[in-house]
């Protein structure tokens, strides 16, 4: 029985990876076919040949035909270059908005990290608790909160108009580039805050004290010592925020204007609205290649990153002091309140009155049940397969050195949910099948898999090798070790990962939207449709249920994960993966250099 379970678990893990690869490839495949849309680059040489043939025979008709073909080729060539230009512009805009979103997240996240890690003040715990927002609250709700709060008829504009007597809404930044980067920046700054404050809190006290006693000013110490110690965390957090913003969908879909669309939105529009699958495939391929290049580029650049020593003891936080610190805290706190807390609060306040009405509607109850079923299904699939794959990885690569076991599980990180969804719709189209809830469950499991795997592998790595060795010596079979030692010792991580993946799946609106499963709605899709129909109060009510359920799941996950919450481990896991790549590269380069120059 145990053998069967282990075999099934591992087999499903492999199938999940295969499924992911197949759907990713099928998303890119239309780029190389003449499936639909403008088929270009096919026969310009043939056209030229026809012209040459026509001239040789001297026939007027054939010469006319050749000229027409040549003109058609020229048009196709023009279309080709226009499309290249278009993709280039979209890619440029996507990178630009992701870059500036990361800058906004850094501007808010770094001071917030300083205050959380090094200072005591009223509200510190609340600020620290915001760290789970980016993973716990779906981006759809951030977008909805911004519409409710900063929209033309939003709470903020109405309040300002009432106070100043203005006749026009004074704040119109929402549906612009500024709206996108502010929403992204404030939604994602908690990632920077959490990763950097964790490192900042644990910086070695002795190095700081040595710098103080050397007579360096506080600013000099920050510039020459602290900043370098924090650099790997800042870079790791920035890469994650950049990728999140690069792959952002709902926020750009709602706030982007003409000429302000990202790759992700364009893939969706081409796949669902204009049905230009070739174009969608080209966009998906370009987007995934660019995202992969950013990650690889970061790892290569990270060779310059240096390892920071784990602090034996660290400086305890002290009270905020000095006018500059108070002013900075007030500005940062005010900005977070205005651009993150109040928009989310606006959803709850607007939606609270709608809850009773919503629960009496059959469509809402069905969407809620569908959400529970799909999120539990995908979380179960995810965690079971992650566990067995982690067991295999632990046995095959006990010291975490294998690139395959380290990189392959992270592959889904480089591909967005829209691209995977598009790939799956291609497969469905080819085999003439409609989307089903089971497909949604499998796809969500494939996408949230790296999160579960990171957490389970972390727990597996914390089991001392001696414990596993002793168990192996005392157990009749390898499976006995898995079920009697590894499973019980990782069960908290498994439950935690389960709750985490369930929350992510419940909040995901991208996949249900692109798969377009007939007569099937999840809560996030239901919320999206209500917002799209301008039924904002009902959308807020539905969003409130989503926020509460996500927060409950996250709190559960966080509690199970122990002192460091689940989301911390996730973020840390990713940062560590990125940083390790850099530090390893640096170590290797240094060893080679040392052996050449010092004979060591």
């Amino acid at each position: 029985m145990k053998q069967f379970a282990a075999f099934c678990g591992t087999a499903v893990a492999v199938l999940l990876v295969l499924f992911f690869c197949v759907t990713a490839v099928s998303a890119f495949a239309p780029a190389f076919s003449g499936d639909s849309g403008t088929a270009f680059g096919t026969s310009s040489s043939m056209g030229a040949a026809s012209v040459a043939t026509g001239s040789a025979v001297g026939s007027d008709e054939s010469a006319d035909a050749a000229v027409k073909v040549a003109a058609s080729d020229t048009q196709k060539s023009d279309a080709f270059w226009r499309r290249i230009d278009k993709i280039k512009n979209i890619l440029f805009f996507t990178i630009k908005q992701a870059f500036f979103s990361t800058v906004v997240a850094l501007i808010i996240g770094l001071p917030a990290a300083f205050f959380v890690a090094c200072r005591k003040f009223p509200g510190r715990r609340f600020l620290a608790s915001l760290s789970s927002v980016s993973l716990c609250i779906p981006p759809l709700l951030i977008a909805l909160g911004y519409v409710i709060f900063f929209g033309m008829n939003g709470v903020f504009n109405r309040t300002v108009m009432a106070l100043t007597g203005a006749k026009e809404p004074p704040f119109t930044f929402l549906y612009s580039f500024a709206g996108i980067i502010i929403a992204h920046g404030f939604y994602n700054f908690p990632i920077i805050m959490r990763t950097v404050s964790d490192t900042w809190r644990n910086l070695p006290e002795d190095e700081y004290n040595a710098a103080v006693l050397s007579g360096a000013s506080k600013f000099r110490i920050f510039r020459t010592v602290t900043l370098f110690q924090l650099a790997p965390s800042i870079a790791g957090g920035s890469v994650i925020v950049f990728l999140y913003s690069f792959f952002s969908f709902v926020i750009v879909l709602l706030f982007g204007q003409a000429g302000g669309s990202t790759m992700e939105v364009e893939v969706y529009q081409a796949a669902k609205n204009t049905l230009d699958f070739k174009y969608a495939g080209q966009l998906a391929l370009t987007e995934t290649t660019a995202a992969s290049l950013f990650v690889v580029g970061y790892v290569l650049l990270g060779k310059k990153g240096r390892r920071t020593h784990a602090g034996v003891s660290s400086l305890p936080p002290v009270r905020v002091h000095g006018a500059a610190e108070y002013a900075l805290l007030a500005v940062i706190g005010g900005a977070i309140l205005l651009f993150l807390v109040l928009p989310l609060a606006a959803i709850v306040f607007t939606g609270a009155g709608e809850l009773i009405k919503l629960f009496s509607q059959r469509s809402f109850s069905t969407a809620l049940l569908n959400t529970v079923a799909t999120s539990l299904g995908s979380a179960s699939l995810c965690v079971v397969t992650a566990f067995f794959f982690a067991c295999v990885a632990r046995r095959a690569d006990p010291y975490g050195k294998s690139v395959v076991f380290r990189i392959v599980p992270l592959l889904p990180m480089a591909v967005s949910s829209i691209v995977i969804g598009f790939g799956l719709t291609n497969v469905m189209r080819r085999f003439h099948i409609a989307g089903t809830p089971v497909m949604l469950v499998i796809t969500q499991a494939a996408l949230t898999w790296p999160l579960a795997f990171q957490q389970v592998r972390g727990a597996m790595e914390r089991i001392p090798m001696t414990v596993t060795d002793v168990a192996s010596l005392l157990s009749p079979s390898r499976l006995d070790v898995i079920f009697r030692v590894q499973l019980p010792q990782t069960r908290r991580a498994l439950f935690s990962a389960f709750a985490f993946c369930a929350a992510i799946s419940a909040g995901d609106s991208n996949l249900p939207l692109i798969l377009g499963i007939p007569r099937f709605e999840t809560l996030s899709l239901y919320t999206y449709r209500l917002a799209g129909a301008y039924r904002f109060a009902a959308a807020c009510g539905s969003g409130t249920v989503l926020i509460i359920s996500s927060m409950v799941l996250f709190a559960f996950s966080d509690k199970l994960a122990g002192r460091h919450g689940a989301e911390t481990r996730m973020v840390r896991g990713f940062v560590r993966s990125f940083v390790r790549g850099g530090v390893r590269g640096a170590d290797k380069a240094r060893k080679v250099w040392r052996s050449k120059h010092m004979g060591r």
Partner: protein
Amino acid sequence: MFFTADNLHMDWESVSIDFSGSVDSGRMLVIVGHSGSGKSTVLKMMAGLLPPGKNARITLDGTDITKIPAGKRHIGMVFQSPALFSHMRIIDNAAYSLAAAGMRRKERYEKASEWLARFGLDGFEKRWPDSLSGGEAQRVSLVRTLIAEPRLVLFDEPFSALDAPLRKKLSEELRQWQKQLGFAGIVVTHDIEEARALGDEITVMKGGRQVWSGLPADFKESLLV
């Protein structure tokens, strides 16, 4: 007395720490005690890294330095871990205080190279901290402290992380360097042999209080029990 620290006081966890002591120029005071006796906390209060208590008074060469910030006291400190800046090469680590004082790069590199050579570390300038052995790293840490020419150097169990033969060797070297450079020193240790080897005077701390002070010749192990 060249350096005095009177009425240092701190309530730290369940222990109340009180200390008064002094050391003359060119001499070495050793504070001996078990873990948790408060000796490292006393050292940090002397250095200005922790508040010394309301009634404390710390003087250096007759000047009251109680309220002077740590970086302006002309006191150096060597920690249990070398605490080298891992993102800087050895030369930059050694020259850190010179850069903080505004010395030009060429001059500070020349001076740092001289000091490194003096401590047997010539050729180490371009290397990174994680390529050094424990003893080498602690030497660099010493260079980084002494290059600023502090008038008093505090040593917080500087050799405790090293193996016994290396600890003995470095203790002997430290005495020689102290004689050569003439700085006053206060060493914190829990190693009785090290205390005898380094100290001109010894103070024993237990449970946050000084229980004995005297010469190394009169120091007995039973005082620590």
